[in-house]
């Protein structure tokens, strides 16, 4: 049945189920890029990031901000646009093996999402804490914020939405409607970015450097909980993959 549809390329049946190279290259890409970012912070945070009124701050930090914002819009538009434009219009007709292959690709996307979440929500967010415990801010766009809020968060948002779009456009499992917990797992952490508005609004009234657990930050906490939506995605995937394999593995 499905092998005769347009949706499955003739050679797809022989392609490997999982392309491990994509996982390795994807993770290396983020790792190398963020290592470079961390080096940049180490050098230019101290030498050019202490006084937002200094000309070097504009050179090294505000220009970094402008460039990353433009690149993020371009990358998000291109990536999401590509995934949507190349969607499978006969997704319910694919063979079980092709479906399994796509689940592997989907999990490759999810691995990248998890990796991006780690860098954004863990590495660069707690890093922001120690910077503000050391340097009193005189701008919303501190060196740590330029990286944390406006680089690492958009990157995990772009990655997460890409994973969701891939599932929605290529996997029969997700054609039933909108998977509630998948949306929670993507939109919740996404909302951390708009919540930056609340954060910066509050910090323009009060410094509050002295207390990382200040209630002003609870918006981040609330939306961080949404990461647990990954449990629902996990359960849905296990059910779907179990049906595809149809073997007693015990």
């Amino acid at each position, binding site marked *: 049945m499905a092998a005769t549809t347009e949706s499955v390329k003739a050679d797809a049946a022989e392609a490997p189920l999982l392309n491990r190279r994509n996982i390795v290259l994807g993770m290396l890409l983020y790792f190398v890029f963020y290592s470079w970012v961390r080096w940049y912070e180490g050098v230019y945070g101290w030498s050019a990031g202490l006084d937002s009124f200094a000309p070097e701050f504009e050179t090294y930090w505000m220009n970094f901000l402008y460039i990353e914002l433009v690149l993020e819009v371009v990358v998000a538009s291109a990536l999401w646009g590509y995934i949507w434009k190349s969607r499978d219009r006969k997704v319910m007709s694919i063979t079980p093996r092709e479906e399994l292959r796509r689940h592997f690709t989907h999990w490759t996307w999810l691995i990248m999402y998890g990796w991006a*979440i780690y860098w954004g929500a863990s590495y660069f*967010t707690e890093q922001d804490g120690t910077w503000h415990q050391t340097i009193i801010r005189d701008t919303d766009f501190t060196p740590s914020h330029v990286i944390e809020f406006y680089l690492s968060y958009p990157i995990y948002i772009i990655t997460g939405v890409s994973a969701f779009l891939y599932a929605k456009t290529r996997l029969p499992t997700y054609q039933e409607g*909108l998977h*509630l917990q998948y949306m929670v797992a993507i939109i919740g952490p996404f909302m951390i970015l708009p919540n930056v508005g609340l954060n910066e609004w509050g910090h323009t009234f009060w*410094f509050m450097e*002295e207390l990382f657990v200040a209630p002003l930050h609870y918006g981040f906490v609330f939306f*961080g909980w949404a990461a*647990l939506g990954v449990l629902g995605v996990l359960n849905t*995937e*296990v059910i779907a993959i179990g049906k595809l394999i149809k073997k007693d593995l015990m």
Partner: protein
Amino acid sequence: MSASQSAVRSRAEAVAVSRTFDWMILFVLFTVVLGGYHIHFMLTGGDWDFWSDWKDRRLWVTVVPIVAITFPAAVQACLWWRYRLPIGATLCVLALLLGEWINRYMNFWGWTYFPINICFPSQLIPGAIILDVVLMLSGSMTLTAVAGGLGWGLIFYPSNWPVIAPLHQPVEYNGMMFTLADLSGYHYVRTGTPEYIRMVEKGTLRTFGKDVAPVSAFFSGFVSVIIYFLWHFFGKWFAGTGFIADDAS
């Protein structure tokens, strides 16, 4: 697809596919939980966890277990009830600690030059093992909440004792007596130096000095029981597989 079709060609391939998915799932679960748990923890209990001079006998002991039992309870709700995996709490805590240790080395020390012995994270692994073991042996959410949650709170201070005790030794400095942790803090002044904002070692019953930590741990365990119940149900909700209407489909 056909109900009789399988996506794999042999049992061996099915096993290989299943094991590969296991590793992919574990990585995603670990990293996503790490991110969510870490951002939750650093912004609800972080200050007490960041600095050794915040690790006092009252608020650190009270706050940290209460805010930290959340994600373990939620993940247990999924991994135990769906897969009979008694590793939910330990997985959460190991993820959190890995994220914290990397950060303390790479950023607290590597970027802003605080020594590790002033900014090491709190120890949570013994409490997580208690939660997982109680759930595994009892199979009961109620018992895990009551016995496990109470144990989680009570064991927090003792499990941190080996590392914090040397820093609570008294020292005399310019005619004043305080702890070694306080002395470290004096030399590494932060915007959140605790003596400045007065959120450590405070209270009207300080004359009961030696009782402060056990009383705080007991209270923390009590609240942890309640938080466990709440977050266990959160976890069940987050583990749902439901769909909502999609106008486009």
